[in-house]
């Protein structure tokens, strides 16, 4: 079993490091700091921690005002509240205004588990990717999360970072270098490509190992930057492998699958299969049970790969 780390824990600790390095870093939370892990920043720099209470719209507006005056605000809450709850505020006060606000959501996707549908964000990426000026990043593990948080702090412009509740198997070693807008090649292969984000990267690698024993060699790309998407990596994969499977803990509408499909439809039509949530809300259950129920396991990815290979011309 690979080592497991909670990305939100890494996020919280990285914020403290950044806070030490840069006095302009400020952190906002909406009564969830013990869960989003902004509590570490609150302890270290209470004067730069802004507790807004259960008021996400106000949090985003305050963050915009801080950013307009030279601060680098990180606003954090659960993914269900970080986007849909305050979408208009993000749209006008942040995106249209081109303000340097970092929204870091935690507890995204079905793997929230027992809290059920109201707490399982499966549409946040669709919402946020529809806004001009936003950079959208979904880190795969703790190693990548630390680098992503640093990268967005250094990047001038609105950013959305999507984290999960649970722990992630570590898929990157310390030599990994994250770059905004660049896909990471996790496995080389030419029979098909699996493009995955977040919790689906480890199952993608597991599926690849299983398929290898059947003689199928898959390429695996971690597509952590959803916007701007790495068009070159997508086209290269399409041309060299001829079949694409995307995997994400998100609705099939407006997430990774749709983004990749748009690129391919316009530039290089290629057979594709989407491993995603199929237009359904979530429900209570253990994370592993839910991922199985909604078809988001290594087995589902492997089946999709076989299907896409059959469709190759």
């Amino acid at each position, binding site marked *: 079993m690979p080592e497991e780390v909670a990305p939100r824990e890494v996020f919280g600790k990285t914020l403290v490091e950044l806070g030490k390095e840069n006095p302009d870093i*400020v952190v906002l939370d909406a009564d969830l700091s013990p869960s989003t892990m902004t509590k570490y920043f609150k302890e270290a720099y209470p*004067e*730069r921690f*802004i507790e*807004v*209470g259960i*008021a996400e*719209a*106000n949090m*985003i*507006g*305050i*963050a*915009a*005002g*801080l*950013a*307009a*005056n*030279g*601060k680098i*605000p990180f606003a954090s809450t659960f993914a269900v509240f970080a986007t849909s709850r305050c979408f*208009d*505020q993000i*749209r*006008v*006060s942040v995106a*249209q*205004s*081109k303000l340097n606000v970092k929204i870091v959501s935690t507890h995204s996707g079905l793997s929230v588990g027992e809290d059920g549908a109201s707490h399982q964000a499966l549409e946040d990426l669709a919402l946020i990717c529809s806004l001009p000026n936003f950079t959208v990043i979904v880190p795969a593990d703790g190693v990548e999360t630390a680098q992503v948080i640093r990268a967005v702090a250094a990047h001038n412009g609105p950013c959305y970072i999507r984290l999960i509740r649970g722990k992630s198997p570590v898929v990157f070693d310390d030599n990994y270098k994250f770059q905004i807008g660049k896909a990471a090649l996790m496995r080389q292969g030419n029979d098909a490509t699996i493009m995955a984000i977040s919790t689906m990267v480890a199952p993608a690698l597991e599926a690849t190992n299983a398929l290898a024993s059947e003689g199928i060699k898959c390429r695996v790309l971690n597509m952590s930057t959803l916007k701007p998407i790495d068009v070159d990596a997508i086209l290269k994969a399409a041309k060299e492998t001829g079949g694409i499977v995307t995997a994400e803990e998100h609705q099939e509408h407006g997430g990774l699958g749709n983004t990749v499909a748009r690129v391919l439809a316009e530039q290089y039509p290629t057979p594709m299969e989407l491993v995603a949530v199929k237009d359904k809300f979530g429900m209570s259950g253990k994370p592993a049970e839910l991922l199985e129920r909604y078809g988001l396991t290594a087995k589902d990815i492997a089946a999709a790969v076989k299907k896409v290979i059959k469709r190759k011309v």
Partner: protein
Amino acid sequence: MYNDGIVNVSNNPENKTSVAKANAGVFSSSEDLSIVCKRLRRDIVTMIAKAGSGHPGGSLSAVEIVVTLYWKVLHHKPVDPAWPGRDRFILSKGHAAPVLYAALAECGYFPKAELDTLRKIDSRLQGHADRTATPGVEMSSGSLGQGLSFAVGSALAGRLDKAPWRVYALLSDGECDEGQTWEAAMSASMFKLDNLTAIVDNNGIQLSGFNKDIMNVDPLTKKFDSFGWHVIEIDGHDLKQVLNAINQAKTIKGKPAAIIAHTVKGKGVSFMENNVDFHGKAPNAEQLEQALKELA
């Protein structure tokens, strides 16, 4: 009068040149403000008529407030709109952009001739205030209810930097329907933001009718008071009252101040006054002529 409290320097005479330097370009005018107000009203109705659309009612009701701020209160430099030492004016009621544009043009942020481009394609003067388009506009607004939160964030930034500048937010009474306004109001008093003043242009009319018939926001004074604000109630067309209220707000310590300014929607143009039809409708050529006659 614009030389006090702008920059943090000691009384050491060696700092006199740096004070003078810091204050170079700060706007100042000795013109009679009632004349300025009339001119701005003419600009407002003219630019909206030329655009063929826009919001005259809520622009005309805010003229004395905006003029008092830009002519008597704000430290600002039209030649350097991003001057870090400027006071921040946040127009939350973004549909009243014409009153802000008229003031900014008068102060010299951009040529007055540009007012004719309002709402036209590629214009710097967008239909609703847009910070990415217009020099001197602090916040993109138009979706009501967002400005007070933005103002709270700005005031927090100023406090973190121990900066002497203040934040002024102009709200409509209609946008007090929006819950976010009250989220922001709650937080401003929780954070004890005494560098923040909110002014409510209480003209009593929203898009589709009188507030009391659509959604009654009254009593606004009691609401802000119960949210922990220092509240001042004034006639928003009396220049003296507006200035006194803003000056009083500056002296309040430990809490934000709200000025509830009673105004008349469409103020200055007889057929627009208290007329819901002119919330968001441009005057036609004949109406413009009549309006300009009344504002001569």
